[in-house]
């Protein structure tokens, strides 16, 4: 029995029905990785031995009837900024080149308890800082749809290994669009949950007030299933939110009849590729056909999200990344004289250019005399942006929009002009500032056969609305739009 092109939920059902064992599933997965990752370069670490051990244990658990959940026996890829006990976790940075966590992130712990098998750790932009996965210290991940293109970022590795059919699903993290944008570029589905829904314990922080872990998979159902598994109220994360329900899969049966959906007209006005715009309008039409009320509206403050985001994210990052200093773990420079030189050389040699750029900016905006003008100002703008969304959600159940202005760019193009790269996050960033959930899913292919994603943004704690809409869209597209996951 082959698991080729199967989703996570389908795989676990096959195991449960004794059509295949968790051990065989894993072997096929390892085989796929061996065949494909040479070209895609989505993994930094694959821990075959540990995964095999786990598969044996999980298979027994399934046979004994102890593991009955929809992820039991499913191999999963984890972004390399999420702690995995005993498996190297590098953040794609030289400064953590050999770091082995001594504990699992809560999201990973939840996955393991559900019987999922961690096969490996995926490439990313160094410390999640970037939109192409090119800032990785170790490898340039390629887009499976066209190996000369980037997979997007920062969760480019996870999206690329899912899109190339190496694994059915994985975890990413989203600080300013890092799950949704690479999902869009790679033709897979990804969810950025409401802030506080998935514990950040064990997620190596970039921008603590913006970071969320979320699922990446081939369809909405898998994403909802994984989200249901990884989300929990966690006392180890003081910003974790206690929610009434952690049920995201029941929404898969819901429709969009009567839903009010707004499209920010600013999103379609300038800087957007025509084909991307068409995809959004196509999604809008499908929603209308399915009984939703769709209209354009004006979302205030769109232009202010990116500057506010970069100030907040860089300021937090400058502090979060201070701990990487060559004392407790990771890279230490070989030659230095005295403490301060040890710090400076270890950090300067250990961090890549983009990370240094953001640390410098973050340190500057927090430094004496500038705090009010930059950081405090950005926090005030953040409130205004949140209020603009609150206003929008008084009128609409969901916001529909593009994920990125274009499809995946060619490798090597974006890093030349950082500001331009930052600007490409325009549709995703404000969601993080306002703590909102959003789902990105493929909607069309452009003339070069590159995938185009759209996103539904919901109000806080209303993931189920966007999951229902995503599921509806996916079902409608399925008839004329079959995604191929064996491109490589």
């Amino acid at each position: 029995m082959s698991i080729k092109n199967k989703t996570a939920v389908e795989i676990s059902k096959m195991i449960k029905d004794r059509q295949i064992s968790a051990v065989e599933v894993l072997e096929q997965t390892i085989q796929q990785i061996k065949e494909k990752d040479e070209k895609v370069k989505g993994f930094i670490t694959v821990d075959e031995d540990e995964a095999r051990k786990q598969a044996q244990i999980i298979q027994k658990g399934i046979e004994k009837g102890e593991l009955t959940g929809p992820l039991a026996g499913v191999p999963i890829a984890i972004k390399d900024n999420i702690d995995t006990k005993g498996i190297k976790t590098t953040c794609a940075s030289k400064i953590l080149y050999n770091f082995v966590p001594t504990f699992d992130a809560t999201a990973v712990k939840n996955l393991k308890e559900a019987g999922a098998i961690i096969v490996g750790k995926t490439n990313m932009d160094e410390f999640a800082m970037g939109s192409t996965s090119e800032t990785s210290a170790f490898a340039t991940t390629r887009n499976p749809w066209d190996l000369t293109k980037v997979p997007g970022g920062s969760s480019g590795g996870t999206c690329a290994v899912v899109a190339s059919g190496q694994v059915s699903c994985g975890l990413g993290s989203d600080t300013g669009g890092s799950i949704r944008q690479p999902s869009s570029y790679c033709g897979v589905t990804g969810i950025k949950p409401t802030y506080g829904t998935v514990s950040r314990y064990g997620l190596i922080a970039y921008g603590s007030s913006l970071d969320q872990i979320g699922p990446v998979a081939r369809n909405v159902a898998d994403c909802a299933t994984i989200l249901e598994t990884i989300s929990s109220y966690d006392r180890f994360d003081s910003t974790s939110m206690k929610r009434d329900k952690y049920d995201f899969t029941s929404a898969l049966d819901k429709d969009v009849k009567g839903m009010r959906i707004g499209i920010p007209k600013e999103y379609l006005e300038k800087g957007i590729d025509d084909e991307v715009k068409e995809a959004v309008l196509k999604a809008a039409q499908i929603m209308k056909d399915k009984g939703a009320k769709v209209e354009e509206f004006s979302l205030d403050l769109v232009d202010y999200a990116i500057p506010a985001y970069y100030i907040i994210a860089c300021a937090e990052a400058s502090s979060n990344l201070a701990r990487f200093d060559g004392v407790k773990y990771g890279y230490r420079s070989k030659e230095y004289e005295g403490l301060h030189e040890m710090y400076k050389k270890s950090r300067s040699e250990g961090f890549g250019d983009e990370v240094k750029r953001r640390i410098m900016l973050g340190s500057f905006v927090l430094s004496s005399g500038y705090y009010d003008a930059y950081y405090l100002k950005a926090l005030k703008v953040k409130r205004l942006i949140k209020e603009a969304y609150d206003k929008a959600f008084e009128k609409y159940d969901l916001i529909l929009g593009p994920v990125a202005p274009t499809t995946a760019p060619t490798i090597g193009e974006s890093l030349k002009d950082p500001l331009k790269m930052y600007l490409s996050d325009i549709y995703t960033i404000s969601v993080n500032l306002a703590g909102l959930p959003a789902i990105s899913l493929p909607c069309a292919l452009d003339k070069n056969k590159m995938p185009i994603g759209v996103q539904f943004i919901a109000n806080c704690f209303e993931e189920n609305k966007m999951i229902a809409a995503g599921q509806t869209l996916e079902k409608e597209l399925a008839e004329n739009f079959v995604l191929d996951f064996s491109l490589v």
Partner: protein
Amino acid sequence: MSAHKITDEVIEYVGILAKLDLNDEQKEKAKKDMEEMLEYVDKLNELDTSDIEPMTHIFPIENVFREDEVTNSDGKEATLLNAPEKKDDGFKVPKTIEG
């Protein structure tokens, strides 16, 4: 001309704060980057925020506590597992300045 002139001294100073050493070429690039970024973020000044409360946390949660109970046992081994250099069950670092 940029409205924000980032001088060599500023780059030097930020390098000390961030513990980053940049060579001359990197310094020039960092100056340019930072000037551009600061000019860009100046856009925020178009908004009047004088009456706006800064938002540090997105949700109004408060008072998240743990009870004062010992939950951890000897953590030495895990703590030192990744140490680049250690000695006598501690992390070895260059001599810290005395006095």
